[in-house]
């Protein structure tokens, strides 16, 4: 069944969108990430203009992260204080990101920049996660006790000034790296149309040593607001949010997410991380492939001001 997208000004298949949303929702529920890093490239592969894919992806992430954050709030695995400070940084980063987005779009380099960011970030994150999870699986097979968090070990981040106490996370740390991480994620969110969970989760675990059970809920909490902010700013400055497209993706997404969360509970942590790493790497390779292979036509048309 065809459905006309009023902002993208094209006709697409509704069932493809629902299936796309459900698949991504399933994976995001399983791995505890927003799923934006999957939905935006998928939309681009489906010939949705990248500018619309990014802004609409951000809108879709609001729905999936809100749905996820609700369940974490219930379980008490959400650090509101940490989330709010991450958010303050996120709003700044997002504003800068939107400005860069508009600039790149005007000079015709937006598509390239989005693809490059995806390839580099997904490549790095996916690669690191794969190495880490394979090591963990080996250790588990050898019967060693997994030691992810070494307490008492402090890195340079813990020597920064302006320290603050975060009770839920059992953390006493400077606000500088918290704001910096938030800003970085906000920037990526507005340019890539992602919530940034796939970067936020490792950053909070490895850099700030936030307990793993609090990380996902807190990251989802800040992602709701940053992606909501990104959606609103994209809608105001670039007019690129397609509400019909976003809604079709959300419908599939929220259903898939709850089933995915259940499926995820049956897998062990390191297996889950290894699978997510493979998925992330696959998206990176697919996008990288497009950059290096001669395009079908080297020419493209654009309407200025759109």
């Amino acid at each position, binding site marked *: 069944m065809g*459905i006309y997208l009023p902002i993208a000004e094209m006709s697409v298949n509704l069932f493809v969108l629902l299936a796309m949303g459900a698949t991504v929702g399933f994976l995001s529920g399983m791995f505890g990430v927003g799923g934006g890093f999957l939905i935006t490239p998928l939309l681009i592969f489906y010939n949705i203009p990248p500018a619309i894919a990014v802004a609409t992806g951000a809108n879709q992430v609001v*729905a999936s992260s809100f749905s996820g954050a609700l369940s974490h709030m219930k379980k008490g695995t959400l650090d509101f204080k940490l989330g709010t400070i991450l958010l303050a940084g996120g709003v700044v980063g997002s504003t800068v990101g939107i400005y860069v987005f508009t600039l790149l779009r005007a000079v015709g380099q937006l598509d390239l920049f989005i693809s490059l960011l995806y390839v580099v970030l997904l490549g790095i994150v996916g690669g690191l996660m794969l190495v880490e999870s394979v090591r963990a699986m080996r250790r588990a097979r050898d019967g060693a006790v997994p030691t992810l968090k070494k307490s008492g070990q402090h890195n340079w981040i813990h020597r920064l000034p302006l320290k603050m106490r975060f009770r839920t996370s059992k953390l006493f740390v400077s606000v500088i790296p918290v704001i910096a991480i938030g800003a970085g994620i906000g920037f990526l969110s507005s340019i890539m149309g992602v919530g940034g969970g796939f970067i936020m989760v490792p950053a909070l675990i490895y850099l700030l040593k936030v307990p793993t059970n609090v990380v996902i809920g807190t990251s989802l909490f800040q992602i709701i607001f940053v992606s909501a902010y990104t959606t609103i700013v994209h809608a105001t400055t670039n007019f690129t949010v397609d509400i019909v497209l976003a809604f079709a993706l959300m419908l599939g997404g929220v259903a898939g997410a709850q089933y995915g969360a259940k499926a995820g509970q049956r897998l062990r942590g390191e297996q889950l991380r290894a699978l997510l790493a493979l998925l992330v790497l696959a998206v990176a390779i697919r996008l990288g492939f497009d950059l290096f292979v001669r395009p079908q036509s*080297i020419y493209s048309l654009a309407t200025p001001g759109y």
Partner: protein
Amino acid sequence: MLIIMAMPVAAQEAPENLPALAPASEQQPLQQNVNPELIQIGLSTNRVEITADFDGADLTIFGSVENLDPLVSRQGRYDVVVVLEGPPREVVVRRKDRVLGMWINMASETFVNVPTSYSVATTRMPQDITDANSYKRLSLGADNLHIEPIDREGNPVTIEEFRQALRDRKAAAGLFNMRVGGVEFLSQSLFRASLPLSPSVPVGTHKARAFLFKNGVFISESSDYLTIVKAGFEQTIYRFSNNHGFAYGLLATLLAVLTGWLGRLVFRRD
């Protein structure tokens, strides 16, 4: 496939409204009429709505030829070309070049007043209707469209390269197209043209023009306007998003929050 009909309008035009180009039938002076042939098209509907399930359509335009010479008509020497031209817009054509192994947008050329779409329907193969010069003089056909660069002092070779690329890309997107045999004579004087509207047909005012040729010579032209709009709901969304971006963004966000909340209620599995 949806078919949009456009019925002929009764001859409202008085003969003195004839196009300036008088019939040039010096090749066959014997057949010269007192009243030159007059082509007319009319659209019963001047508005086509694009609805949520729109995936392309066929636009049918009816028209008639008046004062025709029965002899020429019997020999099938009358030809009609119908064109539907989309609203003009500025277009940037970009070319990707290989940089460090990657394909990156480098050179670009901007053209002004490029019709967003250009559909042609003809009675026969275009080269059998009239000669290339005639098409050029009338700017008829995608290859003869006057596509003006914004920077007129640019290198003509580069401009021509990008102009050709523009036509190619438009054709690949189904926006520039030609249907040979798309115009049929239903009777001696009544004809029907069918033109494809692509799924990505641009909204705005489209101009329909019909050209009459007799023995390969251009005789007369008639035109009418057609407005393509998004239907109620789609149009409301589009307008709202462009005029009230902030409120639209807020609404999109609220919708997402609501969907997320309801989704959890309906599908929760923990």
